[in-house]
């Protein structure tokens, strides 16, 4: 970390210019719960760290006609304390709340969890299922990027030099919509997902599923948006047959690694189980 420079600009343009102009590696500092560990271990040795927490747009959130725009660096604890947001996007907020301890929750953010680009990041499948869109700013202006298009591999993103995820937009929900995220860990708290599954679905008045998005985490180099899983639900009453198809589609989509936390066989099976269970919770939330 020797010679590392720290900047804490108050505008997006300034932050972007600093990142774009860095001669060596530059890192964005939001909550720092991943970055400081990486700095400490020597995994990264940036020339420049740009703290974005003085940028109001990245530290606030708003709701406009039912659609939320959440600053990428807003701490998770703050989101979880908002009963309206928790009630609307329960799966997204609960997924983020699973990350780390109370202390971590005081700093960790949706934008940080996404841009750290861990395949096991809990909030990412939930955001993908929710149809969340990133508002990205960079030297060439602003663009909107679906959450599923940000991560390209472990620790890798599609963001160009100087680009920052400023905020994340969660769309206005159709009337009967619910979302849920579940993960498997070998304990009850403070662990990294072995498998994660996010589901968001909408029902019409008859209880038929009209729209669905399903995402799997920790079973591929990036969180997956699995169209076949959504297709298993759309047009059904989310009955046992639909759930069996969802399970099969999730297992087919999973391409996990074998490691000390789970075998390929286990992760594949659990992908199906968690997709079903998350769909059942999303269904209940949509119906209520």
């Amino acid at each position, binding site marked *: *970390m020797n010679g590392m420079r720290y900047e804490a600009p108050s505008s997006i343009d300034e932050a972007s210019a600093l990142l774009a102009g860095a001669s060596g590696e530059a890192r964005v*500092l939001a909550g*720092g*719960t991943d970055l400081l560990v990486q700095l*400490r271990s020597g995994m990264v040795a940036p020339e420049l760290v740009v703290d974005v927490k003085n940028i109001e747009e990245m530290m606030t959130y708003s709701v406009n006609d039912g659609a939320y725009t959440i600053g990428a660096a807003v701490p998770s604890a703050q989101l979880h304390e908002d009963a309206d947001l928790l009630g609307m996007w329960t799966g997204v907020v609960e997924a983020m709340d699973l990350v*780390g*301890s*109370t202390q971590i929750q005081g*700093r960790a953010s949706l934008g940080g969890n996404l841009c750290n680009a861990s395949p096991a990041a809990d909030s990412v499948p939930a955001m993908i299922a929710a149809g969340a869109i990133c508002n990205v700013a960079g030297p060439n202006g602003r663009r909107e990027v679906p959450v599923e298009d940000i991560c390209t591999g472990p620790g890798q993103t599609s963001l160009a030099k100087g680009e920052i995820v400023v905020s994340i937009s969660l769309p206005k929900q159709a009337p009967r919509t619910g979302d849920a995220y579940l993960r498997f860990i070998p304990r009850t*708290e403070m662990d990294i997902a072995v498998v994660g599954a996010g589901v968001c679905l909408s029902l019409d008045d008859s209880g038929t599923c009209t729209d669905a998005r399903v995402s799997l985490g920790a079973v591929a180099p990036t969180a997956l948006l699995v169209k076949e899983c959504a297709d298993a639900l759309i047009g059904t009453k989310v009955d046992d047959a639909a759930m069996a198809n969802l399970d099969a589609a999730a297992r087919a989509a999973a391409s996990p690694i074998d490691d000390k936390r789970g075998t390929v066989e286990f992760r594949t099976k659990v992908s199906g189980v968690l997709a079903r269970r998350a769909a059942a919770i999303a269904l209940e939330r949509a119906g209520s």
Partner: protein
Amino acid sequence: MAKNHVTTTINGEPVEYLCETQQTLLDVLRDELQLTGSKEGCASGDCGACSVMVDGRLVCSCLVMGVEAEGKSIETIEGMADGDQLHPLQQKFLENAALQCGICTPGFLVAAKALLEKNPDPTETEVRYWLAGNLCRCTGYDKIIRSVLEVAEEAKGA
């Protein structure tokens, strides 16, 4: 490279210090300001021994850069007692022997205080989950959890 000049508030007192960019807030507290109550256990945000409050939020000071404290309000274990008057949590930890080696204790106390300020009447489950980021390798946690619950219970009667 020049050190960073930081102006902040610690336990209600204005404080200025110089720090290297690579120093964490925990490094600054312990090595520059001699506030050694906050402990370094893991230095990776897993153990909670370095827990402090930054602008009213419970955080691990090992995961905060020293320069980030600029303009913030920091509360550490050193600000918990009122002079010689121990905080009820500190008193209860002593009475119940909710500590053995003591390394984790400042973090537990800071975290437990934050819990009771947010949720004055927590269930045992809520206490256990709130404190899941504070590791103790001596006590087995029961005395700690019981102490927090007893302080909450006694505050209701007060």
